[in-house]
């Protein structure tokens, strides 16, 4: 009898321990996913911040460039750089036949002509001389240099030929290949060529969309929250508005994209693919988030503040505008930043309103076509070239960096400025 009891007790304690273990392993699993995730992104993405350059001697032959004696600046602009660019690449292997010369040309980006031109424009005295010029390596060689490219594949399954690899290895051995910080990733617009593609256009697109979103969503949401929390009579209509807000907060984001497409583009005829439309769509999405945050922080202001103001003879509007609203601002602002961070990471609605178009210019205003950072991630993730994989991860790192900064900022505002009552 006693033994039975003990056994039962032991069993119950074991069950207790098991249950506890389940809980611990659940937390562990969740954190493990997070770690794998962050590790994967960083390990594939960090190399995108480096860019591989080939150092190639270029002879600025005036004859090949069709330049006359003492050329003016304009002449230099119009000169023909293609031939000397080709020649300097072909000169890497003096015994190369025509096919091999073509392969040599494809070892650098198609931008190489411009890079040589800029070199001369910076220093016109180079005419007739030979100088070693930094040329952007093609994305495949870039990947080879970073060790991301499987060199042991059979040649016909690679985009880099054995010949190119041979020349490349010679260059590496001579120290003519250099890796430098990739500035063009931040200053270039999108491009079909992975080695030239940058995030500048999508970054500006994101900034413009978020600004439009902030300018619309913040005032409307704060005013709505003030009305609902401070002035609204308790009746059916107010309840209806509340139900609406709570529902909108849980409507899938793609439905807002359909709203943008069906109303903003089809009926109001706003320009497609622009951050203006994107921002308006996102603002409708963030509206409920900000309203809910603003209401919560208005509710947190103790009634004694209102009563004191009313007792001093202030009207209800004065009480609200001079006392309640300023006191609730820290909470409202941090809620707004969190809402904007959500909007910044949103992709699906922007795809529907056409912000996936290929944009190779940097937008100067919200009315210009643009992509946004998350959409850029989608576009690059869908393209087959190997060079884009690290770009996607790098773009994700930039986006996550922004999101973390915004959330930290929201936390700081909340902790620094929010008054603790009680």
């Amino acid at each position: 009898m006693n033994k039975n009891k003990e056994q039962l007790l032991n069993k119950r304690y074991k069950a207790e321990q098991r249950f506890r273990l389940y809980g611990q392993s659940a937390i562990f699993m969740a954190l493990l996913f997070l770690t794998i995730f962050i590790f994967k992104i960083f390990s594939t993405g960090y190399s995108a911040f480096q860019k591989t350059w080939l150092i190639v001697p270029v002879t600025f032959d005036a004859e090949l460039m069709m330049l006359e004696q003492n050329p003016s600046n304009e002449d230099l602009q119009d000169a023909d750089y293609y031939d000397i660019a080709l020649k300097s690449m072909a000169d890497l292997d003096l015994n190369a036949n025509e096919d091999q010369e073509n392969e040599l040309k494809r070892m650098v980006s198609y931008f190489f002509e411009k890079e040589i031109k800029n070199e001369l424009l910076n220093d016109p005295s180079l005419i007739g001389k030979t100088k070693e010029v930094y040329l952007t390596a093609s994305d495949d060689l870039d990947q080879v240099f970073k060790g991301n490219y499987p060199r042991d594949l059979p040649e016909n399954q690679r985009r880099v030929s054995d010949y190119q690899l041979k020349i490349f290895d010679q260059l590496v051995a001579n120290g003519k290949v250099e890796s430098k910080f990739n500035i063009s990733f931040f200053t270039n617009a999108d491009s079909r060529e992975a080695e030239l593609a940058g995030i500048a256009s999508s970054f500006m697109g994101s900034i413009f969309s978020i600004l439009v979103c902030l300018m619309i969503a913040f005032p409307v949401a704060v005013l709505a929250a003030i009305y609902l929390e401070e002035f609204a009579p308790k009746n059916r209509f107010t309840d209806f508005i509340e139900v609406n807000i709570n529902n909108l907060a849980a409507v899938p984001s793609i439905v807002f994209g359909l709203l943008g497409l069906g109303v903003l583009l089809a009926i109001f005829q706003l320009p497609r693919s622009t951050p203006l439309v994107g921002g308006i769509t996102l603002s409708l999405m963030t509206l409920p988030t900000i309203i809910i945050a603003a209401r919560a922080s208005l509710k947190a202001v103790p009634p004694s503040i209102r009563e004191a103001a009313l007792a001093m003879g202030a009207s209800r509007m004065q009480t609200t505008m001079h006392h309640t609203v300023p006191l609730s601002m820290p909470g409202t602002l941090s809620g707004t930043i969190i809402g904007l961070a959500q909007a910044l990471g949103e992709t699906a609605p922007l795809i529907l309103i056409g912000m996936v178009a290929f944009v190779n210019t940097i937008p100067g205003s919200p009315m210009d076509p643009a992509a946004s950072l998350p959409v850029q991630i989608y576009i690059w993730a869908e393209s087959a070239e190997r060079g884009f994989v690290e770009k996607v991860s790098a773009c994700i790192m930039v986006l996550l960096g922004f999101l973390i900064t915004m959330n930290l900022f929201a936390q700081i505002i909340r902790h620094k400025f929010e008054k603790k009552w009680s």
Partner: protein
Amino acid sequence: MNLILFTFIVLLGFTSYYFGRKKAYTIQSTKKRLTALPQFYGYYLAIWCAIPAFIIFSLWAIFEPTIVKLLILSDYSNQGYLDDELNLIYEKTKALSRGQFTGEITPFIEASAEKYLSLRSIAQSSKVVIVLSIIIASVAYAYKRISSNSRTREPVEKFLNAVLFTASLAAILTTVGIVFSLIFQTIDFFKVIPLFDFVFGTHWYPAKAFVRDSSEALDPTMYSDTFGAVPIFAGTFFIAFIAMCVAIPIGLMSGIYLAEYASTKVRQYAKPLIEILAGIPTVVYGFFAALTVGPFLKELGTSMGLEVSAESALAAGGVMGIMIIPFISSLSDDVITSVPQSLRDGSYAMGATKSETIKRVIFPAALPGIVGSILLGVSRAIGETMIVVMASGLAANLTLNPLESTSTITAQIVVILIGDQAFGDPKTQAAFALGMSLFLVTLCLNIVALKVVKKYREKYE
């Protein structure tokens, strides 16, 4: 021009605030008692100055193009043009007046362009005149009111109240906008495709509708086997089911652990860390699923002798589950902590262990709240787009094998609407019909979930 007028109105508004307040001080200096604080005099005048002008201004901006178009096209009425042709004529006219027209210029169009330009300039100048006279009239009226020292605070506050009320209508307007943008296209869609075929058809090949020769008349029988949404609905619920299989055990158990077992220190760090998972954009999850999880599962399956598609439902659903973990864990954490302490104390007093208390007392008490949080999670899983678009297939297979690829409502909407769309095409309308069904399903889930959670909160307050 519009910008100048707009700035002008704003500047006038500020000036009138200043004058209104100054008037209040002069009234005060005559030893008269003011009826409100001086700034209210200023607000009163500024509101009367700017608001009527803005109303006229925006009404003008909305109606001017329509009226000009009507006037231009009235020349072409009774000539038997179709609506589309009239629109084309109007576009040509506008292009010519801007000097961007490149086609052949007919005398008709040239005349219209001239008329267009003159109409526009008449409209512009009359707009300026009307806006200015409205400003003068309303400011004069308001100034007279101020001078006679009548009440200003009440009207100003009434106005502010109206502004606040209008802002709170934004939520309703958005809902109306959603329904409005979905419903017309959906109705048009069901005019071509019978509702029955859509809801019970088992073949979904919208690409078939796209290759249709647009000169042919619409032939409903052609689409009989094109827009059957069963595979898509099945795929949506299937992937959501896989996601919930990952999210519910992990999310619920970590919620319980955080609420009942974890020390303050563990809670302080683990909770925000888990919530980071909720802040990661979904496109990032999609990339992760497509680049890492999909190929990993494929390799794993091949090594076990299974055929796994690189775009399997399992990869998309699993990653989606990870995304939903924090929703379930933090909501169930909240729900469990709000169960009154007295229930726990009672159970412990009877000799129950902690896990027995949780399983037999706290869990049943918190069940409605937990169900609510799970329903919200399901609604998120159904509406999730980017993970599915990037990691799951785009071909709508009707399958229950998690290793094959399936498609979802959201993925199909994106596939159909990416790039240029032609409104009026059954394919585009199909996307809106899918959107409508998505909206309705998530709406029902949300309403039920919010009701359940609310009821639960009231019970323990």
